[in-house]
């Protein structure tokens, strides 16, 4: 967690973190699918927003993430809202840090 900051806004129960995509193919179908699957394990509603143009996507929808066209190096903010938002966001942050956990 050294290079990301996770912030909790205690008023709304919203947790936000920033990540950077480090995978030559960008956020492609397979990691998008994995993100959707990871998110489905939490109650929190999780979304991601591209810092460059402000476009955002619902992390439970593979298609909406793909539509972001987030290539390698894209910076995203991930926001979770709900009782287990902190855990959900942390889980996604780790997934991005591990380079989508692929061979």
């Amino acid at each position, binding site marked *: 967690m050294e290079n990301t900051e996770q912030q909790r806004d205690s008023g709304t129960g919203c947790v936000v973190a920033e990540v950077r995509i480090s995978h030559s*193919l960008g956020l*492609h179908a397979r990691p998008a699918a994995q993100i959707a699957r990871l998110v489905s394990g939490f109650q929190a509603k999780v979304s991601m927003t591209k810092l460059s143009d402000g476009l955002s996507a619902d992390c439970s929808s593979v*298609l909406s993430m793909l539509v972001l066209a987030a290539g390698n190096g894209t910076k995203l903010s991930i926001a979770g809202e709900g009782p287990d938002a902190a855990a959900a966001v942390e889980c996604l942050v780790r997934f991005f840090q591990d380079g989508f956990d692929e061979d």
Partner: protein
Amino acid sequence: MAETERTIQAIAVSPGVAIGRILRVDRSGRDVEIRRIAEAEVPDELARLKVAIDLTRRQLTRLRDDVRDKLRSADAEIFDAHLLLLEDKMLLGDVEKRISRDLLCAKSALHGSADHFAKVFEGMADEYLRERAVDLRDVVVRIADNLTPEKAVQANNTGDRRIIIANTLTPSETVRLDKKRVLGFAVVTGSATSHTAILARSMQIPAIVGIPAELLETLGATDRIIVDGYSGKLIINPDDRTEEAYQTKIRSTGKLIEELAGERDLLPVTRDGFEVELAVNLESAEQYEDACKAGAHGVGLFRTEFLFMDRLHIPDEEEQFQIYKKLLIAAGDAPVTIRTMDVGGDKFNDTIYQSVENNPFLGLRGIRLALYERRDLFDIQIRALLRAGVYGNLRVMLPMVSSIREILYSKRIIAELQQKLEAEGKEHVKRLTLGIMVETPAAAMMADNIADLVDFFSIGTNDLVQYTMAIDRGNERVAYLYQPSHPAILRLIRNVVEAARARNIYVCVCGQMASEAIFAPLLLGLGVAELSLAPSALAAVRRVIRSISLHEAETAAEKALRCSHSGETIDIFHELLTRRAPEIAGFLD
């Protein structure tokens, strides 16, 4: 307009003559015109979409599991991604909006969404992401292919009845044809004994198969055609004289059919006093009433796989129990022979069992599939049958038996389920009348051993011919070898009859052969006293039975058993038919 008349020889699969304009049914679903729906149709269309998505989910799950077993798990994840796309809120939201707001049919809506998102992807800078349009398109095409074709056929809202022209019609598509809108059909692939043809006969829709594929491109909606389901002829843009001749044929056939219908209460007794049992083959319990009107005595074959055809849901035990019970009560004392689900081959693999086999007819079908792949469904069906059996004269038969082990295993399952029902305090039959379909050469050859284990045999000639002659009955290039009157088949039937006589059990023939006027005397002559036919064939076969004597049928059959090829046996029985029932023989020419 004044095109010249053209005649094409195809293969007749369902009798009757249809004259009219064509309706092309395109199964690929791509490049179809956009179809709008009425607001009232929206809920139906959304339900259709949901059914197609459910089916696609099962197919993709199966594919993923297959791939995971055979390849790397990373490759299987591609299908996981497809599965997620299938559930994707953004995609489904968009498709549903196109149905409910833009009033498009499900297919048009799916393709509209795919086009929309494909444009978004294609505009992306990243080449990899640009290609995601392909994944999306793949999923959408799968869903569109899984939409029931019902509405496509009903899309004919011009009001007039049409003749369907298609590359192929699957059994499930055939049963969904709306008889009120369909005059007949002509398709490229298939054969006289494909299940599609069987259905056409049972629905009494004239049909031919084996038309040239290029007709699909060249025939237009304004072309008028005649489908001759007796001779297999397809006549394009007939001139007045041809059409008049066919109208005359339709009238005279109608007259004979009317005359035969008047005989429905006469017993099917030969001239020398031998009474034959004439039962019917059914696909649904609703057909029974009509079959009774045609003079049927009981049901010789109830094809339960058609209960599993609807993709909406697989009927549970209670629902099946009610269906069987209703049929048994309707039949009263008359026997009702229910065949456990015979899925596989060309029937409904998609709902029950999704896998690609190189040789589906030699693969997991019938009792094999029931015992080793879908025991869950088999158990439910047997429970429903055991419970319904107390309401009438039930006989249960197992399809595609090729080994005695399959019978023993089935009997053990039946005994276990009886014990369970007993423990649950549910009323059920204690002694089930159980038989097998004899449709593999193995079962026919082993009939004497099998006869010790069962109460009856029912010979399914369509498959027996296919497996004995080693021909794919859907392959029009070897269709000429489909010869029910081949001496090899007659000898197998004779073997089964003798085994049954020695053990005092009965034999029925429920294949297409029993429905053909020329073969009824042959079967009687071989010692078969029970025939189960398509309801449409009852009248003609009854007339033939009443016209001949058992003695002459036996003499002819003895002669046929010594023939070397099927042409000789056909000659023998054609001669008999022409002599005794020339009006029926006239149908065949």
